[in-house]
């Protein structure tokens, strides 16, 4: 089933100005897909994401989520329930003064029974490694801790589509790994559709599909490996290769018979192999 369909959507923050933050995007995301969205600052990623959960309504074109048009107000509640979004800044997300209540907000909102809400809070806080902070105050947490709580708040809803807008930007490496693991697990086991906006090229490698935005348009769309093999184009759009791929490319340019590694482990393998052959 199609989870998201964008039909030539455009969005202008100020009407009549003629400049569109998103400028004619057509995109279809199947249920269960894990899509990474990449692109320069200001290229329209957050704007696009907000159109998927009906926070913004397209100025032109249509956004359809599980068959429902976001422009129809009657659909808003249903759409927000199925498409949960973690914002770029966690402060825009915190609603309660106690972590537990904050995480409970989403599940309460969709009318889950009490015991289930309790279970969801437990699951979500555990998933982001914040169980010890149940009764803490969100505003009194460190930057990364706040971000984990914001992620837990959306996890607790177990939405059909989870949109993460640079939600791992302030996490330490372990936290980033944990969030990626839980999101991947939900994607694999429950078929949760994931839209993962990130500036970390290594994270994009974990997706099934990567979409690159540039000046409000989608300019590349394919598997991450396909996209990272088009390094000249990537550079044009202000992106970069994952570091291991960059090093591999430089070694090849230096005359070594290597190429194609995307991760440190693969890089080490290919270096080893070519040193042994030499």
């Amino acid at each position, binding site marked *: 089933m199609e989870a998201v369909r964008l039909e030539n959507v455009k969005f202008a*923050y100020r009407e009549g100005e003629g400049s569109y933050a998103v400028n004619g995007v057509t995109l279809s995301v199947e249920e269960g897909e894990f899509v990474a969205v990449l*692109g*320069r*600052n*200001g*290229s329209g990623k*957050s704007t696009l994401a907000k159109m998927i959960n009906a926070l913004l309504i397209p100025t032109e074109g249509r956004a359809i989520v599980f068959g429902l048009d976001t422009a129809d107000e009657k659909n808003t509640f249903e759409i927000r329930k199925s498409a949960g979004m973690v914002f*770029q*800044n966690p*402060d825009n997300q915190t609603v309660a003064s106690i972590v537990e209540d904050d995480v409970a907000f989403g599940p309460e909102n969709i009318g889950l029974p009490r015991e289930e809400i309790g279970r969801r809070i437990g699951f979500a806080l555990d998933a982001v490694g914040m169980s010890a902070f149940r009764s*803490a*105050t969100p505003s*009194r*947490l*460190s*930057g*990364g*801790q706040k971000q*984990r709580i914001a992620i837990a708040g959306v996890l607790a809803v177990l939405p059909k589509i989870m949109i993460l807008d*640079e939600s791992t*930007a*302030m*996490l*330490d*490496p*372990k*936290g*980033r790994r944990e969030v990626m693991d839980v999101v991947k697990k939900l994607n694999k086991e429950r078929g949760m559709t994931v839209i993962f906006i990130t*500036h970390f*090229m290594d994270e994009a490698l974990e997706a099934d599909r990567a979409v690159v935005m540039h000046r409000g348009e989608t300019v590349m769309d394919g598997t991450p490996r396909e996209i990272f093999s088009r390094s000249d184009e990537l550079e044009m759009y*202000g*992106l*970069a290769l*994952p*570091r*291991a791929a*960059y*090093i591999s490319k*430089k*070694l090849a340019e*230096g*005359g*070594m018979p290597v190429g194609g590694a995307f*991760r*440190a*482990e693969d*890089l*080490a*393998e290919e*270096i*080893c192999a*070519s*040193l042994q052959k*030499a």
Partner: protein
Amino acid sequence: MRIVAKGLTYTYNPRSPFAVQALKGVDITIEEGEFFGIIGHTGSGKSTFLQHLNALVRLTGGYLKVGEYDLSSKKCDVLGLRAKVGMVFQYPEYQLFAETVEKDVMFGLKNFCRDMGEEEMRSAVREALETVGLDYEEVRDRSPFELSGGQKRRAAIAGVIVTKPEVLILDEPAAGLDPLGKKEIMQLLHGIHGGWCKTVVIVSHDMDEIAENCTRAAVFSEGKVVMEDTPAAIFARSDELLLLGLDIPVTAKCARILKERGIALDTDFTSDDLIRKVLAAYAARKEGRGC
């Protein structure tokens, strides 16, 4: 200005049920001229420590001196200190507040460079915005809150570098920037470092960034400094870092695996150096000299 902390402690909400001891005796020395990196797990006290450096958090325990400013003394000239130590917050939203980007960036000038004329200020603002890769004409009259995430971060950095502070403290400056933006911000920092900016201190969760850019670094864990050394020496202790919930750069991961295979490279874990050493090893083997 040299930064010296000894036994620095700090507790949020002391004497209340919500008391959290964020710093448990931090010892650190940052020499003038360094490009210093701070890494550490979430909640390890990095931001709390940084906020002490320009007195955003009042010192309550231990010793801290930044240049000639003794923060443990009641007579410490906080305004004088802040003019010399510029700080970019972890979340740019905490830093931006004015109606327009131009007013926002100009704020620091009005505060710290009072003898500057209006025209001079405007051109300084333009220069700062362009340095961080924002188009002055395009953003000057816009509300900083209507910028994209990465644009906000750039504006926040402009608001600090505009006054040319001698010490620049940046809490995760590259978070939220696109890859090209990250590279540009690092180049920008290296460009001003050694000029009007004598010392740079950055916090980062990106180990590659620390390996590539810093002269020395400190590892925070649970409110203490557990390592303080060159990135090369720190990342050579990869087992300990992994135990602390941290990571090692891609270069170090690669070198670690190669070492297990009997290929030892003496690298400082910057990409350039790793590439050079691997190519040298390859050339040596080709010539049959082995390595």
